[in-house]
């Protein structure tokens, strides 16, 4: 089976002045459809860089990233944006909602970029917000909501274009443990419904939700643990 995302000997080297920093040193990760994968590592281990590669937000210095079989370095920024918008839904630690838009408008935004008709956009956004139990907060702005609520809006937004992969960057990092658990429950539920989930976290306990944990230290995968 073709993996949905594959990193093949991926290097990322940042040059700061004359100093070279190897954020990733030839990592290999394969994610198959329907998997729930965690990338766990301490801060400074290259987690965020790895997430950027997995989400095709950045291009490696060396090595290849395949998204659904396409080498992303061969795609133009616009094509990449379209594929990203269709295949991947992002959930960030900081929620990253647009504060000037309401919950419903935030969820509709990815659909606008994919050219979905207005009527369908509204219908889908309302459905998704119902799924994450926010039917009462649809017209509220992010600043009027709690962290847990904002993260649920972000999950609804990530699902807007019905992507195959949900990429979550420390999804519980800014939440208290109880809300964190409920967010994780949502991710589990989505995984059971067939979504591929990739989660990046520094937290061992959160990482254990996954079927497979890739341990990242100093830009290298040191160990892979399967459940």
């Amino acid at each position, binding site marked *: 089976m073709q993996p949905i995302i594959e990193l093949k000997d991926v290097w990322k080297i940042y040059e700061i002045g004359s100093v070279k920093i190897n954020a990733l040193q030839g990592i290999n990760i394969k994610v198959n459809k329907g998997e729930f994968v965690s990338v766990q590592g301490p801060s400074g281990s290259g987690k965020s860089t790895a997430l*950027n590669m997995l*989400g095709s*937000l*950045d291009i490696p210095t060396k090595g290849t990233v395949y998204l659904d079989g396409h080498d992303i370095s061969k795609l133009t*920024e*616009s094509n990449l*944006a*379209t594929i*990203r*918008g*269709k295949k991947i*839904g*992002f959930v*960030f630690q*900081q929620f*990253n*909602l*647009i504060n000037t838009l309401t919950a419903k408008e935030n969820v509709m*935004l*990815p659909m606008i*970029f*994919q050219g979905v008709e207005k009527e369908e956009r509204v219908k889908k956004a309302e459905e998704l917000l119902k799924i994450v139990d926010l039917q009462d907060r649809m017209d509220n702005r992010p600043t009027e909501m709690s962290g847990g609520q904002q993260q649920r809006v972000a999950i609804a*937004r990530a699902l*807007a*274009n019905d992507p195959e992969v949900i990429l979550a960057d420390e999804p519980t990092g800014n939440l208290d443990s109880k809300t964190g658990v409920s967010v994780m429950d949502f991710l589990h539920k989505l995984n059971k419904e067939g979504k591929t989930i990739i989660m990046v976290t520094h937290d061992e306990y959160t990482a254990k939700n996954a079927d497979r944990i890739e341990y990242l230290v100093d830009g290298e995968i040191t160990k892979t643990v399967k459940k």
Partner: protein
Amino acid sequence: MRSWLTLLGIFIGIAAVVSLVALGDGLRAAITEQFSDAGTDKLIIQAQNVGFAPPGSTAVNKLTVDDYEAIKKIRGFKVVAYRLLRSSSLEFSDTKTFSFFISMPEGNEERKLVEDAMSLEPIDGRMLKTGDKYKLVLGYNFFKNDIFDKKPKIGNKILANGMEFEIIGFLDKMSNPQFNGIVLINEDAMVDALALDDSVDIITGQVINVNDIDDVAERVKKELRKRRDVDEGEEDFSVETPQQAVETFNSILDVVQAVIVGIAAISLLVGGIGIANTMFTSVLERRKEIGIMKAIGARNNSIMTLFLLESGTLGLVGGVLGVVLGIIFAKLVEIIGNNFLAEGLIVARFNPLVIIGALLFGFLIGTLSGIIPARQAAGLPPVDALRK
């Protein structure tokens, strides 16, 4: 708040263009209308500063009665008359005011010519005749009377520069509102009452054949050049048909409008730079938002369009405000002009093309100013944009 300040440049520029073009067009229409009253077979000869000065200003080398006598002898004229135009005091029922006095010439033909050229008609009483010394005719404003405490009547005595005159008539309302405040007085009486020398302000000549008017004008110019000892091209006098006078005025107005539009263009340019600056700041502030939008599938084009629309809207709003302010300003000038100068002299005329043009221009400037910031926003790599 910042957006509003940004709009100021666009807003002032557009307001200036809209109001000044409206006032200029109004003035042009008013002047054209006035001169068209005068007829096409007449030449108007005036002394003139080499630069631009209003008629009757003291800095010019004035025409004299001798000049008039010489012009009168030129071939092609049916009748030639001269007028004196002076400002002087007028006193009635213990109120004193200053008015523009215009002399009526001696002969009947000459008198008829001046009446024709100025379209003078009495509304009450009669016009002046030869020998009406110490009698005068007042303009329409005196008939309507918003000048003296008591309304002056036919037969009343009135003091002109301290000399007693009898009112024998009032003029009907004229298309040139300035003429509604004039005083008509026979030439010999005017020289007497105002203690004038032999200078002459305007010489009007009616030609026998309209087709010869340019030849006659040339002959007048030649004669005056000889008498006043000036070379061709350096004339300190003008010989014009009413049409030419309008054209001269229009060409001056064109220059004035061009200068003002030029200044407004600078304001618009500065406004455009202001919009660009605001958009740059906005791109910086919204880096993260741009990153989020890119992460959730926004193409470079979508981001570019978003920012261009925003800057275009800023420009358009500036244009709308500018048009509104421009209209208000022009109307205000019109109202002030009507109250303090003369009714109907300043009329703001709004050309819909100018207004639509101003709005489009505002939008265009906004959009153009947004291009570079929008490109910058669109080109941000998503990872860099997302980094806090």
